[in-house]
Protein backbone atom coordinates (compact mmCIF):
# COMPACT_ATOMS: atom_id res chain seq x y z
CA UNK A 1 0.00 0.00 0.00
CA UNK A 2 1.70 3.26 -1.09
CA UNK A 3 2.18 6.01 1.49
CA UNK A 4 -0.09 8.74 0.13
CA UNK A 5 -0.35 12.20 1.68
CA UNK A 6 -3.06 14.81 1.41
CA UNK A 7 -1.93 18.34 0.65
CA UNK A 8 -3.94 21.56 1.04
CA UNK A 9 -3.09 24.53 -1.17
CA UNK A 10 -4.05 28.18 -0.69
CA UNK A 11 -4.11 31.49 -2.52
CA UNK A 12 -1.98 31.82 -5.62
CA UNK A 13 -0.50 28.35 -5.05
CA UNK A 14 -3.95 26.77 -5.25
CA UNK A 15 -4.51 28.83 -8.38
CA UNK A 16 -1.24 27.64 -9.96
CA UNK A 17 -2.02 24.02 -9.13
CA UNK A 18 -5.62 24.38 -10.24
CA UNK A 19 -6.97 22.89 -7.01
CA UNK A 20 -7.06 23.56 -3.28
CA UNK A 21 -6.09 20.00 -2.45
CA UNK A 22 -4.08 17.18 -3.96
CA UNK A 23 -2.94 13.70 -3.09
CA UNK A 24 0.60 12.56 -3.86
CA UNK A 25 2.90 9.72 -2.94
CA UNK A 26 4.87 10.71 0.16
CA UNK A 27 8.43 11.65 -0.83
CA UNK A 28 9.41 11.42 2.86
CA UNK A 29 10.69 14.92 3.62
CA UNK A 30 9.49 18.46 3.10
CA UNK A 31 12.39 19.36 0.78
CA UNK A 32 11.76 16.31 -1.39
CA UNK A 33 8.07 17.20 -1.44
CA UNK A 34 8.80 20.73 -2.60
CA UNK A 35 11.02 19.42 -5.42
CA UNK A 36 8.44 16.88 -6.49
CA UNK A 37 5.70 19.55 -6.56
CA UNK A 38 7.90 21.86 -8.64
CA UNK A 39 8.52 19.02 -11.08
CA UNK A 40 4.81 18.30 -11.34
CA UNK A 41 3.75 22.01 -11.49
CA UNK A 42 6.62 24.00 -13.10
CA UNK A 43 4.75 27.25 -12.39
CA UNK A 44 5.57 26.85 -8.71
CA UNK A 45 9.31 27.27 -9.34
CA UNK A 46 8.99 31.04 -9.66
CA UNK A 47 6.59 31.37 -6.72
CA UNK A 48 7.38 31.88 -3.09
CA UNK A 49 5.65 29.53 -0.69
CA UNK A 50 6.15 27.87 2.67
CA UNK A 51 5.09 24.50 3.99
CA UNK A 52 3.07 23.94 7.12
CA UNK A 53 3.01 20.53 8.79
CA UNK A 54 0.15 20.00 11.21
CA UNK A 55 -0.61 23.75 11.08
CA UNK A 56 2.93 24.82 12.01
CA UNK A 57 5.17 26.62 9.56
CA UNK A 58 8.37 24.68 9.00
CA UNK A 59 11.71 26.41 8.46
CA UNK A 60 14.02 23.41 8.01
CA UNK A 61 13.79 20.13 6.15
CA UNK A 62 11.32 17.99 8.08
CA UNK A 63 10.29 14.35 7.90
CA UNK A 64 6.78 13.82 6.67
CA UNK A 65 5.07 10.84 8.19
CA UNK A 66 1.70 9.50 7.18
CA UNK A 67 -1.31 11.24 8.65
CA UNK A 68 0.37 14.63 8.80
CA UNK A 69 -1.57 17.61 7.52
CA UNK A 70 0.54 19.30 4.85
CA UNK A 71 -0.27 22.77 3.49
CA UNK A 72 1.29 25.00 0.84
CA UNK A 73 1.18 28.63 1.92
CA UNK A 74 2.02 31.61 -0.28
CA UNK A 75 2.97 34.87 1.51
CA UNK A 76 0.16 35.99 3.82
CA UNK A 77 -1.90 39.02 2.86
CA UNK A 78 -4.61 39.34 5.45
CA UNK A 79 -5.86 42.59 6.92
Amino acid at each position, binding site marked *: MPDVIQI*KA*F*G*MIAEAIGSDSLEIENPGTSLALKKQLEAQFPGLKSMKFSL*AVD*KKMIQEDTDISQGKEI*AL*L*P*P*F*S*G*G
Partner: protein
Amino acid sequence: MEKERKPKNIFVQGPISPEKIAQSIANHAIKTDIGGHSIFLGQIRADEKPEGKVIAIDYTAYEEMALEKAFEIREAIFAKYPLTCMHIYHSLGEIKVGEICLFVFTSSKHRKAAMEACDELVERIKAELPVWGREILDTEGHVWKVNT
Protein backbone atom coordinates in the same frame (compact mmCIF):
# COMPACT_ATOMS: atom_id res chain seq x y z
CA MET B 1 -13.26 41.33 34.99
CA GLU B 2 -11.97 38.05 33.56
CA LYS B 3 -9.74 37.93 30.56
CA GLU B 4 -11.41 35.95 27.78
CA ARG B 5 -8.82 33.29 27.10
CA LYS B 6 -10.67 30.56 25.28
CA PRO B 7 -9.91 30.07 21.57
CA LYS B 8 -12.59 31.73 19.52
CA ASN B 9 -13.52 32.25 15.93
CA ILE B 10 -12.14 35.45 14.47
CA PHE B 11 -13.64 34.98 11.00
CA VAL B 12 -16.75 36.75 9.76
CA GLN B 13 -18.38 35.99 6.41
CA GLY B 14 -18.54 39.22 4.42
CA PRO B 15 -17.81 42.78 5.55
CA ILE B 16 -17.76 43.94 9.17
CA SER B 17 -20.62 46.40 9.65
CA PRO B 18 -20.34 49.67 11.62
CA GLU B 19 -23.32 48.37 13.64
CA LYS B 20 -21.31 45.34 14.74
CA ILE B 21 -18.53 47.67 15.86
CA ALA B 22 -21.03 49.84 17.78
CA GLN B 23 -22.47 46.73 19.45
CA SER B 24 -19.01 45.59 20.45
CA ILE B 25 -18.22 49.01 21.96
CA ALA B 26 -21.58 49.09 23.78
CA ASN B 27 -20.89 45.66 25.29
CA HIS B 28 -17.97 47.20 27.21
CA ALA B 29 -20.02 49.79 29.10
CA ILE B 30 -20.46 47.34 31.98
CA LYS B 31 -16.68 46.93 32.35
CA THR B 32 -16.09 49.93 34.58
CA ASP B 33 -12.37 49.25 35.06
CA ILE B 34 -11.74 50.23 31.42
CA GLY B 35 -10.37 53.73 30.80
CA GLY B 36 -9.37 53.46 27.14
CA HIS B 37 -10.27 51.53 24.01
CA SER B 38 -8.07 51.35 20.94
CA ILE B 39 -9.61 50.23 17.65
CA PHE B 40 -8.07 49.54 14.27
CA LEU B 41 -10.23 49.05 11.18
CA GLY B 42 -8.94 47.86 7.82
CA GLN B 43 -10.95 49.20 4.88
CA ILE B 44 -10.76 48.04 1.26
CA ARG B 45 -9.02 50.61 -0.90
CA ALA B 46 -9.74 51.26 -4.58
CA ASP B 47 -6.08 50.88 -5.54
CA GLU B 48 -5.02 51.51 -9.13
CA LYS B 49 -2.91 48.61 -10.43
CA PRO B 50 -1.29 48.36 -13.85
CA GLU B 51 -3.88 45.62 -14.58
CA GLY B 52 -6.91 47.66 -13.43
CA LYS B 53 -8.64 49.23 -10.46
CA VAL B 54 -9.44 47.20 -7.34
CA ILE B 55 -13.20 46.89 -6.77
CA ALA B 56 -13.16 44.21 -4.05
CA ILE B 57 -10.93 41.76 -2.21
CA ASP B 58 -11.88 38.10 -1.87
CA TYR B 59 -10.36 36.73 1.35
CA THR B 60 -9.61 33.07 2.00
CA ALA B 61 -7.80 31.51 4.94
CA TYR B 62 -6.35 28.28 6.21
CA GLU B 63 -8.90 28.64 8.96
CA GLU B 64 -7.82 25.96 11.45
CA MET B 65 -4.22 27.14 11.37
CA ALA B 66 -5.24 30.82 11.51
CA LEU B 67 -7.37 30.24 14.60
CA GLU B 68 -4.53 28.41 16.35
CA LYS B 69 -2.14 31.21 15.45
CA ALA B 70 -4.61 33.92 16.48
CA PHE B 71 -4.96 32.24 19.85
CA GLU B 72 -1.17 32.12 20.26
CA ILE B 73 -0.87 35.82 19.36
CA ARG B 74 -3.73 36.66 21.71
CA GLU B 75 -2.07 34.87 24.63
CA ALA B 76 1.26 36.59 23.93
CA ILE B 77 -0.34 40.05 23.82
CA PHE B 78 -2.33 39.41 27.01
CA ALA B 79 0.91 38.34 28.71
CA LYS B 80 2.75 41.45 27.50
CA TYR B 81 0.19 44.20 28.20
CA PRO B 82 -2.24 44.75 31.10
CA LEU B 83 -5.40 44.49 28.99
CA THR B 84 -8.98 44.08 30.08
CA CYS B 85 -10.29 42.84 26.71
CA MET B 86 -9.13 42.00 23.22
CA HIS B 87 -11.22 41.24 20.13
CA ILE B 88 -10.15 40.32 16.60
CA TYR B 89 -12.47 39.98 13.60
CA HIS B 90 -11.33 39.30 10.04
CA SER B 91 -13.59 39.01 7.01
CA LEU B 92 -13.71 36.08 4.62
CA GLY B 93 -15.26 36.17 1.16
CA GLU B 94 -15.73 39.16 -1.09
CA ILE B 95 -15.42 42.59 0.55
CA LYS B 96 -16.08 45.64 -1.64
CA VAL B 97 -14.09 48.87 -1.66
CA GLY B 98 -15.09 51.12 1.25
CA GLU B 99 -16.15 48.13 3.35
CA ILE B 100 -14.36 46.98 6.49
CA CYS B 101 -12.42 43.69 6.50
CA LEU B 102 -10.48 43.86 9.80
CA PHE B 103 -11.59 44.97 13.27
CA VAL B 104 -9.08 44.85 16.12
CA PHE B 105 -10.25 46.11 19.53
CA THR B 106 -8.21 46.36 22.75
CA SER B 107 -9.23 47.83 26.11
CA SER B 108 -7.27 48.63 29.24
CA LYS B 109 -7.32 50.68 32.41
CA HIS B 110 -4.85 53.23 31.04
CA ARG B 111 -4.66 54.20 27.39
CA LYS B 112 -1.04 53.27 26.60
CA ALA B 113 -1.49 49.52 26.99
CA ALA B 114 -4.57 49.48 24.73
CA MET B 115 -2.84 51.56 22.06
CA GLU B 116 0.42 49.62 22.00
CA ALA B 117 -1.34 46.25 22.12
CA CYS B 118 -3.63 47.25 19.24
CA ASP B 119 -0.69 48.32 17.04
CA GLU B 120 1.22 45.12 17.79
CA LEU B 121 -1.85 42.94 17.17
CA VAL B 122 -2.43 44.48 13.74
CA GLU B 123 1.20 43.94 12.77
CA ARG B 124 1.15 40.33 13.90
CA ILE B 125 -2.21 39.57 12.27
CA LYS B 126 -0.94 40.85 8.93
CA ALA B 127 2.40 39.03 9.20
CA GLU B 128 1.45 35.75 10.80
CA LEU B 129 -2.12 34.71 9.97
CA PRO B 130 -2.51 32.42 6.95
CA VAL B 131 -5.03 34.64 5.16
CA TRP B 132 -4.91 35.66 1.51
CA GLY B 133 -6.54 38.50 -0.38
CA ARG B 134 -7.40 38.18 -4.06
CA GLU B 135 -7.84 41.71 -5.41
CA ILE B 136 -10.67 41.75 -7.92
CA LEU B 137 -10.22 44.35 -10.66
CA ASP B 138 -12.67 46.34 -12.75
CA THR B 139 -11.07 44.69 -15.80
CA GLU B 140 -12.46 41.34 -14.55
CA GLY B 141 -8.94 40.12 -13.85
CA HIS B 142 -7.39 39.78 -10.44
CA VAL B 143 -4.05 40.15 -8.65
CA TRP B 144 -2.92 38.66 -5.35
CA LYS B 145 -2.63 41.17 -2.53
CA VAL B 146 0.86 41.68 -1.15
CA ASN B 147 1.33 42.91 2.43
CA THR B 148 4.09 45.47 2.89
